[in-house]
């Protein structure tokens, strides 16, 4: 199997942000498109505010579930410094889609370590094609912070090797049993995420 046949997506963030769920929905979309897919993460203690990464690989046939550094096509970052932390996983020419939220952990507040001044700027300075947006504000404007996850999925929807609607349908299916109102909210969050990533891609 040649590398080019496999798409590698790395989703990163912090325990509790919904990284694993977002990646699972991406995996469902890939499978709906007829791909083989593997999704993996380190869980366990990570759910206590620690670092979380979720690897998604899909294509005709996926062997190793782990993505090697330097081979990621799209990095979907739920937090600014976490996106920087994993940016070396991107392949040359890869794309970073980053929620610019800064989530500062206790070890930084205690003064033991410092949070980078401008993690997204650092990524751009390293030559990484980085699109950033404020997923939390978009979600809050739609009425519920929890929609941030769907905003993130909207942001990646136009950067997959299949139509955005495939992913949208998987998001809708995920919320179907919560009623049409919730499905509609998520539809709007998805559209807003798409628009934000497109807007930023133009201005970046």
């Amino acid at each position, binding site marked *: 199997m040649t590398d080019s046949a496999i798409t590698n997506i790395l989703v990163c963030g912090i325990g509790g942000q919904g990284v694993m769920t977002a990646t699972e929905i991406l995996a469902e979309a890939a499978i709906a498109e007829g791909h083989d897919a593997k999704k993996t993460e380190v869980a366990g203690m990570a759910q*206590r505010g620690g670092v979380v990464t979720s690897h998604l690989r899909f294509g005709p046939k996926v062997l190793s579930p782990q993505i090697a550094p330097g081979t990621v096509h799209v990095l979907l970052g739920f937090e600014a410094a976490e996106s920087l932390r994993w940016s070396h996983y991107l392949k040359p020419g890869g794309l970073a889609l980053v929620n610019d939220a800064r989530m500062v952990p206790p*070890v930084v507040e205690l003064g033991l370590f410092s949070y980078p001044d401008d993690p997204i700027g650092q990524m751009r300075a390293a030559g990484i094609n980085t699109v950033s947006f404020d997923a939390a504000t978009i979600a809050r404007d739609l009425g519920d912070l929890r929609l941030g996850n769907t905003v993130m999925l909207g942001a990646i929807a136009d950067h997959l090797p299949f139509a955005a609607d495939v992913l949208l349908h998987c998001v809708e299916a995920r919320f179907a049993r919560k009623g049409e109102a919730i499905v509609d909210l998520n539809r709007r969050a998805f559209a807003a995420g798409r628009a934000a990533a497109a807007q930023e891609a133009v201005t970046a």
Partner: protein
Amino acid sequence: MAAVMSAPARVPQSGRLLLSGNEAVARAVWESGCKVAAAYPGTPSTEILEALSIYPDIYAEWAVNEKVSMEVALGASMMGARAFCAMKHVGLNVAADPLMTLTLTGVVGGMVIAVADDVGMASSQNEQDSRFYARFAHLPVFEPADSQEAYDMVHAAYALSEKHQVPVILRLTARICHVKSVARVGERVAHEPAGFVKNAERWVMVPAHAKRRIPMMFERDAVLREESERSPLNVLEPGSDRRVGFVTSGPAYMHVREAFPDAPVLKLGMSHPLPLDKVKALAGMADTLVVVEEVEPIVENELRTAGFKVHGKDILPKIGELAPEVLTPAIDRLLNNEPPPPAVPAPAVFPRPPTLCASCPHMGIYYTLSQLKNIIVAGDIGCYTLGAGHPWNALDTTICMGAAVTVAHGMDKGRGEVDKNKKILAVMGDSTFMHMGMQGLLDATYNNSNITFLLLDNGTVGMTGGQNTPANGRDIRGNPAPRIDFRKLVEALGVKPERVREVDPYEMPNLFKVIREETKIEEVSVIIAYRPCVLIDEFKAMRAYYVDEDKCTGCSNCLDVGCPAIHVTRREMAVKPSGREVELTFVNIDPIACTGCGMCVKPCAPDAILQPDAPRIVAKLTPI
């Protein structure tokens, strides 16, 4: 012929499903007609029993520890029922006692023991390789490489188990348990237990009987070796690049196939006993053999003993997970090839260790312990192990489940002159106490120990995601179950009623006072601190607090509580009246993350932390 039962609505239908390895194991255990399944939660195995508990027609339980789960499964198997138990790698240490004897009795109903090794140590105190136990106990081992294989191997394991009346170890690793991949699944086939057959020579393992069973175990080894040679799970894959042939198993197989698509490979699905004839066949296909296994060189050493010339851990890492990018440079060096250029280095970013949740009752405990001098704190396994981290640094030891109280007891007995004034404490959670802590407390009371035992009752197994336990009175499916009374329990274990204190961990001043009192008394005291874990239904979020900026003096005492909802807004240098320069740290509270426990209010000297419509704090200044 067995009846085929249909799956109810909540159970995923048969077909192609995106399943984690744990979910795939659960599915196959259910389909196999297993009647009894038991486990104690432990990363990365926890989700197997969680997934099983949604299936009907199967008895599933959270056992209090892994030894118990294995014995429950064995009892069911003796009745002729198919049985299952699951545990993390260190859980098998706890269950090693029944393991070493059930290999002599054997089983009747098929029995599968799933053991999940935390390779890479995401959430464990060591990285032991469970395959050693299979050698120790003369048991066959199956090692799946993805969810489909995990599913298929459970079915194959039940068949092998019943054919040879031997339990089968299903060896998983974190990279099987927590990887989701597509698996094709089927339907449940019921398996009616044959019934218990009394047979003291088989089931009563006194020396005379055990002596007759041991030769049978050795005979079984030979039979299982033949099974391994024939097993379709041990696949010889020819390849066009004969420079290196690989012997590999589990997730390492996928990495080998990814990195060396043209190499000949012997994939070990049944990795114990080893199919030596198949290894011989592989040796004929390649110039050099390399064993790629996680984590110890077990197969490698056995192949050397059998006379094969192999490489393995001489060129590969002895700890942690393998991956294609780990294998490729090692093989390049072996073949004297130029290794690929190193990848782009990782950017330097601050560490983000796991931490306690906002409103976690353990914060009150560790804040208080961090304020006490001249103490030694023996810790244990659970969320509260995080008390060893910042800002508390309030935990001095962690060994294994239940060791806090016994290590503390040994410290008390072993103390010399230099430590005679130290107060020795043990800290343990409710679930760990029931798992393996009760005996240690009994030992401490029986032997007149001088320790203070903090029993942190948060009503759940927190670290693994909030599973039910006897401490919250709900079973695995959420049905009511007897709720343990810890006061009565510790009194029954020999603690004097007046030495049992019950406290609220949110009330830190009182907690401080009680710890001070009990550590002064030279006998076993138990301080039971109850507050529900924030992950369980009993926890009710309260109104968020905020910081009155006009009142905040920048003392940063609140940060010592360690709450992730408190954030620094600015730091500035100031000169005290004494002339000393100090850094002031001003804070706010994230109103979304804060759930209103109020623990940060206590150390706030200027009373700057308030609830939205709480009265301004003037009351305590007003004489009554």
